[in-house]
């Protein structure tokens, strides 16, 4: 199935992509210049911000739950589940990095493999 990807910080350019393929591959095949490193979801280089729609990124191991709650997605493993809107590149990384001493993570904000569920 084809999905529409809108890139908000590239003049809302739109691309039709295959929902089975990682977004990094699809967008690069369409000529979008994107940073990447490991290509297996572990190094965060390809992170982008999802501002609308849904992706599946079960294979990513780079993001902690705080970054995920800010909308970050790992393009080298993420596949679109719907039409989506992204902000790409380092310009989208405003909330990706934080000083770990000044702004610690809560237990539920750690990476998914070590996070403990939030007390309600």
């Amino acid at each position, binding site marked *: 199935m084809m999905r529409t990807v809108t890139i908000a910080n590239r003049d809302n350019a739109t691309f039709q992509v295959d929902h089975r393929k990682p977004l990094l591959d699809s967008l690069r095949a369409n000529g979008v*210049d994107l*940073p*990447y*490193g*490991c290509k*297996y979801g*572990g*190094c*965060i*280089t390809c992170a982008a911000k999802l501002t609308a729609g849904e992706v599946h990124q079960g294979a990513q*191991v*780079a*993001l*902690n739950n705080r970054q995920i709650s800010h909308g970050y997605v790992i393009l080298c493993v993420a596949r679109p589940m719907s039409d989506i809107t992204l902000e790409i*590149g*380092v*310009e989208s*990384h405003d909330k*990706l*990095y*934080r*000083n*770990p*001493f*000044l702004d*610690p*993570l809560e*237990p539920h904000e*750690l*990476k998914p493999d*070590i996070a403990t569920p939030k007390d309600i």
Partner: protein
Amino acid sequence: MTKHCCGPGYASPAEAMKAPREKLLYTIAIYTGTGIQKPDYLATIDNDPDSPTYSQVISRCEVPGIGDELHHMGWNACSSCFDDASMSRKYLLVPGVRSSNIHIIDCATDPRNPTLFKVIEGAEIKAKTNLSAPHTIHCLGSEIIISMLGDAKGNAPGGYLHLDKDFNIVGRWENSMGGIKFGYDFWYQPRHNVMVSSEWAAPNTFMPGFDLEEVGHLKYGREIHFWDFAKKEPMKTMYLGEDGLIPLEVRFHHNPDSSHGFVGAALSANIIHWWKDAAGEWQWEKIIDVENEPHPEWPIPVPGVISVILLSMDDKYLYFCNWLHGDIRQYDISDPHKPVFTGQVWLGGLLGKAPEVNGVKVTGGPQMIQLSLDGKRLYVTTSLFSTWDNQFYPEIRTNGGCMLQIDCDTENGGMKINPDFVVDFGKEPNGPSRCHETRYPGGDCTSDIWI
């Protein structure tokens, strides 16, 4: 006295100290993580004070890809091949930590303008050895060994990649990783049949950035490992605990007969010393403990974060950097059990003690260092690792890194920043880049091992 036998390097550390002064420096510079979609590169810097291009980048050897994150590098041959006329120190191996590509750069055909000779693709390394994230490179004889911090999917502990002298993949070097949890740096001392390795974290842990809480979840290292070098397997692990959180750079004495060595525990901000006792047992002790420093805007005191350590070629001085505090320290370790604090300079850092040096705003803190063979000139760069830079020093994205020279008093101890030398990587033609490890032709204070 023969200055030179037939192969690369020097007969001994004492001979190395008499080498002519280094006039060129190589450092890697990265665009990974900066937002500039350009390849990382090896920068060549002129540091001949009599040259019209002194203190400038004179050439840039770009790697083919984007986003490799060049980091550490090593020579294809060192003084361990001093007796081998068929070997020469011609190539720098420059790996990309993120891509696992290993770039072989010819620095000898034209030392002022190195060129790319060959790339060992990360995909081939992963397919043949199930390893990724290359870090430290050492050669021994004609063999080249590289610590690889992860398996092909970025999980710890990784292992060691073995290359032959023509840069073909031989396979895994080690016969066993034993119970080792993580890899990082290593150094060997063949006359004691020993290698010591340290621990950072899995690539999937450290590459995305530093979550302090993951230290408590045992995702970062706190052990060092002593290997039976001939058997290629670990024989003894030392649990350093809270004194040794994130043990990084490993340095043996240059003297090949010595069993003394040191590792800097980055997060604990301690220097750990080891040696073989009279009974032939390996022992360790903490010899330096850098106090955390208060910061007006921080709820907790700032740890030093010792990102690198280095020994002078005569094994007299230990140098290290506190990347977050912003100081470089010099200790006289003539008695390795009792270091004497002899010098300190400040540049950058979070404590605000030296925001500007030689007219350049220093973003980041003192990070990688390299020392001249005679021990008198210490070169320092300011970027640690792209994602970690972005967390602690976000302005580095627009300011770039820089390189400075510290003049060291080798007689009485003491250090001062050289006022004439500064390379501002914020002014690079493609935009601000960040410099990391430095080497120079002929072998340096972290490259050569004597057998």
